[in-house]
C-alpha cells in the first residue's frame, strides 16, 4: 500500500521534491503539497483502492504525511470489511 500511495503522490501531488526523498512521517504540506493537490491525491487513492473517503476523513490531517494517508486508507478498508 505504501508503494501505491507513493506512486500516486508522485504522479498527482505536484510536489517540488522527489517522493523518494520524503520519509513516511514527513509533513507533506511543508514539503509543498497544496490543498488542491491533496484533493487530487484523495481522488486518485479512491480509484486505486476502490474506496470512498467518508466526509469525516476529508480533512488536512488525513493527508498530512504518507503514514497518515496509509493509516486513513487502512481505516476505511477495515470499516468496509466490518460492515
Amino acid at each position, binding site marked *: 500500500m505504501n508503494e501505491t500511495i507513493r506512486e500516486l503522490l508522485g504522479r498527482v501531488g505536484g510536489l517540488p521534491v522527489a517522493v523518494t526523498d520524503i520519509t513516511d512521517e514527513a509533513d507533506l504540506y511543508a514539503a509543498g503539497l*497544496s*490543498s*488542491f493537490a*491533496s*484533493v487530487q491525491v*484523495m*481522488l486518485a487513492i479512491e480509484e486505486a483502492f476502490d474506496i470512498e*473517503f467518508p*466526509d469525516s476523513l*476529508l*480533512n*488536512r*490531517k488525513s493527508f498530512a504525511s504518507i503514514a497518515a494517508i496509509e493509516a486513513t486508507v487502512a481505516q476505511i478498508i477495515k470499516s468496509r470489511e466490518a460492515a
Partner: protein
Amino acid sequence: MDMQTSFLDRLFDAGLLIDTGVDGLYGRSGQFEDVIAAFERLIDKVGGGDGAEAMRFPPGMNRAFFETSGYMKSFPQLAGTVHSFCGGELDHMNLLKCMEVGEEDWTKDQKATDIVLTPAACYPLYPTVARRGNLPAGGALFDLQSYCFRHEPSKDPARQQLFRMREYVCMGTEQHVTDFRQSWMDRGVAMMKVVGLDVTIDIANDPFFGRAGKMMVNNQRDQNLKFELLIPINSAANPTACMSFNYHQDSFGTKWGLNLEDGSVAHTACVGFGLERIALALFHTHGLDVKDWPEHVRAALWG
C-alpha cells in the same frame, strides 16, 4: 408563507428593490442606495485613517487573471463568463433566424471574450500589485469596491447574483496580516452595534464544489482561515454572513508572486463587507422606512 419570498415581496412593494424578472438580479431605489452610501461613509470613518490605497475596478476582470486565480477549482458553479457574437454576416443571419424561431439555443455559438465577471472585489488587485515589484517595508493596504457576480439564483434577497463588495486587503508578514484581520473583526462587531444590528462571529462555510470541495471546506475550517460576521435577515436560526475575514496564508503571495521587501513571500488577508446584505439587515431590523429607524442609528449613518 415562505418567509424569504415574503421579505423580498415587501422590498418590491416598498420600491426598495426593483424586480427584473430574474431571481437575484434587482434594481435598487434611491433610498436603498442612500443606505449603502451612508454605510460606506461609516466604513471610511472607521478604516479611513489606516492609509489604504483606494482602487476601483469594473465588475469584469481579465480572463487570464481569473484562470490563474484558481476560482474554477473551487467554485465552478458560481462563475460567470462574458461571451459575445464573433461571427460574420452569414452567422448573423443564422443567429437572427435562430432567435426568431426560438427552437434552438441562440447563445450556443457565442464565443468567450477576454472578460470574466468579477467573483470578489479583490481578485483584480493581486496581479496588479504583483506587477509593481516587491512590496514596501511594512507591507501594503488596499481599499476596493466592486459589483461581484455569483451564479446562484435565489428568492432570498440576501443572495443576489450581482451585488457590491467593499474590501480592505492587507499584504505583509503573517503577524501583520493576522493582526489586521483581528482588528477588523473587533471593528466590525463595534460598527454593527452602532447601527443597532445583532451579530455573531463564526467560522465560515463556503460552498466549495463537489466532494473535493468537502475537503477544501474542512481544511478551511480546521485552519481557521475564514470567519464571518452573521446577522439575522431571513431567519434567526440561519443568520446571513454580512462580513467575512479571510486569511489566505501565503497562497496568494505564492500564486501571484507577491514578495516582501526582503524577497520572502507575502502573506495576505482581506476583510469584506457585503453591502446589499448590510442594507437588507438594516431594513429588516429597523423597518422599511428609514424615517422610522431609531434616532441613534440614523445619527450613526447620516449624523
